[in-house]
């Protein structure tokens, strides 16, 4: 228990940087607008900086944190006071980070996450590492509310480190093209603020038609893919640099990061689900990554943490057994029946047509986009082949594929809701889509499997109900196994 304290003064600077980061585009625009008159812009920049600095110092002065009666209390706000009281029983994850600025002063940033959507970030942006550790040990308790015996807590059970070679392989195969592409897209969208409209038009009207050719289209596609691959390589390398996973009695501690070092503390009883993800670049090499869902707030998309970035598929079960034993038993009992195959295929055809048709009409050489059709159909087949679901006493396994093959292991007691969905086309074929949601971030994380047979879907639906008792229905079960068999036959 300690009395109200201020952060390290560096917090004033991090606050300023945070504001700049949050309003980056506005500030850049402001610069461009005022760039004509040098005196005005200089004065403008100086006054903006001054205002930011003053507000940074004020917010540092008005920010205090304390631990009272097992409650983390943060009071902040220059004009509007905002008080956050978090009781330690509610804390999901404690996230300790150190950015470049913090590391120069030997400081860290502490973020405390609870479940629920209405609470705001409880973030202390600059305190010494000792203070952070002290804070952490005060806030970590067992479920009875008593402070954990520190000795038992500190007993290290497992220690995993990502070797340099594995780090490079992780980065090579990360394939987070989506993120990299969006970065490139953002860069290009900023381009029009640098180039004037006349220049762009001139370029579009004279240079492009003269130089355009199949080769150019081809090379530019290759160039963009290579560039985004390079970005995703570097991004992954920086993110997972020095990755270590330590397993203690009651919690997991993950450290990672080159420039921004991050330390995550995740209590075991806060883990909502585990995902085994085999990306398309990793699958051929029998590699996977393991992802953990916890219920922290903040990120809209859900609160996923990489539990381990790269692992051989064959070692996954052993790893899960040692690290998260509650999730070590993936079971597959039912698959979509054969009549579901055409729905899987049609779906991918429709999705790819929604890209191909606009490309055909609006892009030069867009008709080549038709070559996407075959990979799309193959992907649809792979999605059909890989979809599987199973239950044992306490946990549910759902395996499905978008591009990457994802196996989710979910404990029954963590399921927030289960849904069955059926559209008229599915009704005609007695097929249903099955969906479960666990808490993760603001909106939770959902896992679904499409086109299950009605009886199978109903079985897994009923299983979620707390009053479910396993009933012996040999007839129904044997038919399911038979279905599974025919599917595996068609695979080989």
């Amino acid at each position, binding site marked *: 228990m300690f009395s109200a304290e201020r952060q390290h003064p560096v917090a004033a600077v991090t606050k300023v940087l945070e504001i700049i980061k949050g309003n980056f585009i506005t500030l850049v625009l402001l610069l461009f607008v005022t760039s004509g008159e040098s005196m005005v812009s200089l004065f403008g920049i100086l006054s903006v900086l001054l205002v930011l600095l003053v507000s940074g110092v004020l917010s540092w002065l008005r920010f205090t944190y304390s631990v009272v009666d097992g409650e983390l209390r943060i009071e902040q706000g220059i004009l509007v006071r905002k008080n956050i009281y978090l009781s330690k029983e509610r804390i999901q994850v404690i996230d300790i980070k150190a950015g470049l600025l913090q590391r120069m002063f030997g400081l860290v940033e502490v973020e405390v996450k609870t479940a629920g959507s209405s609470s705001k970030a409880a973030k202390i942006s600059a305190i010494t590492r000792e203070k952070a550790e002290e804070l952490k040990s005060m806030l970590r308790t067992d479920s009875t509310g008593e402070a954990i015996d520190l000795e038992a807590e500190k007993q290290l059970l497992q220690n995993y480190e990502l070797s340099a070679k594995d780090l490079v392989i992780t980065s090579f195969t990360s394939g987070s093209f989506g993120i990299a592409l969006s970065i490139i897209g953002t860069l290009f969208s900023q381009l029009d603020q640098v180039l004037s409209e006349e220049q762009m038009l001139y370029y579009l009207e004279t240079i492009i038609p003269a130089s355009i050719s199949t080769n150019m289209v081809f090379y530019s596609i290759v160039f963009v893919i290579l560039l985004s691959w390079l970005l995703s390589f570097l991004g992954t390398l920086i993110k997972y640099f020095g990755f270590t996973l330590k397993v203690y009695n009651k919690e997991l501690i993950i450290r990672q990061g080159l420039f921004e070092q991050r330390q995550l503390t995740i209590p075991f009883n806060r883990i909502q689900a585990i995902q085994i993800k085999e990306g398309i670049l990793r699958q051929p090499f029998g590699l996977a990554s393991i992802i953990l869902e916890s219920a922290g707030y903040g990120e809209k998309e859900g609160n996923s943490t990489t539990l381990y970035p790269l692992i051989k598929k064959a070692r996954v079960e052993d790893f899960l057994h040692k690290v998260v034993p509650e999730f070590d038993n993936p079971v597959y009992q039912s698959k979509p029946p054969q009549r579901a195959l055409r729905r899987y295929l049609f779906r991918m055809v429709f999705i790819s047509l929604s890209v191909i048709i606009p490309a055909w009409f609006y892009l030069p050489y867009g008709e080549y986009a038709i070559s996407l059709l075959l990979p799309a159909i193959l992907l649809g087949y792979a999605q059909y082949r890989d979809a599987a679901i199973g239950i044992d006493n306490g946990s549910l396994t759902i395996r499905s594929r978008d591009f990457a093959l994802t196996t989710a292991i979910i404990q029954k007691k963590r*399921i927030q809701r289960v849904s069955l969905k059926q559209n008229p086309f599915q009704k005609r074929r007695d097929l249903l889509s099955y969906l479960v*949601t*666990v808490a993760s971030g603001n909106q939770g994380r959902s896992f679904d499997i499409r086109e299950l047979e009605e009886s199978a879907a109903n079985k897994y*639906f*009923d299983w979620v109900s*707390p009053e479910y008792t396993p009933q012996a229905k040999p007839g129904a079960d044997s038919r399911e196994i038979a279905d599974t068999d025919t599917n595996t036959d068609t695979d080989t």
Partner: protein
Amino acid sequence: MKSEPQHRIPRTAVKAWRISGFLVSLFFWLAPIAMWVFDTEGVVDLWVYLVIVSAVLAITLLITFLIPHFRWKRWRYDINEHEIDLQHGLIIVQRTLVPVNRVQHVDTRQGPILRNYGLSNVTISTAATTHEIPALTEENAGTVRDQISRLALKAKEDV
């Protein structure tokens, strides 16, 4: 499979939904009216008006008459000490099961139209999702709310 949930939404819900559907459809009428008001020169052909007006008319009929009825017809719910069981959806039928001990809070909400008919929506929130049982009678909504919150309290587990 468990049998379908048994409880239904009161029939007065259809009336309330018709009125709110009609009010919403009025906004769609703003488009052709605005076009007619600003088109003083008569640039827009008559057939354009005809197409737009018939489209808006179709929307009006749909959201005032058809959708409220079929929505009411589909809605089913059940609440027992273990779970909340919901079934709804016009075209895509969705059946949802929420274990009661996952419920974080329940509240009842009503706008002016629902209040006029003595109806109230019940909103059920878990740590991940939010579900709504629409247009129950005020009395029943209160009962349902208290029932769920009592059951949720009894089975309190942390996330």
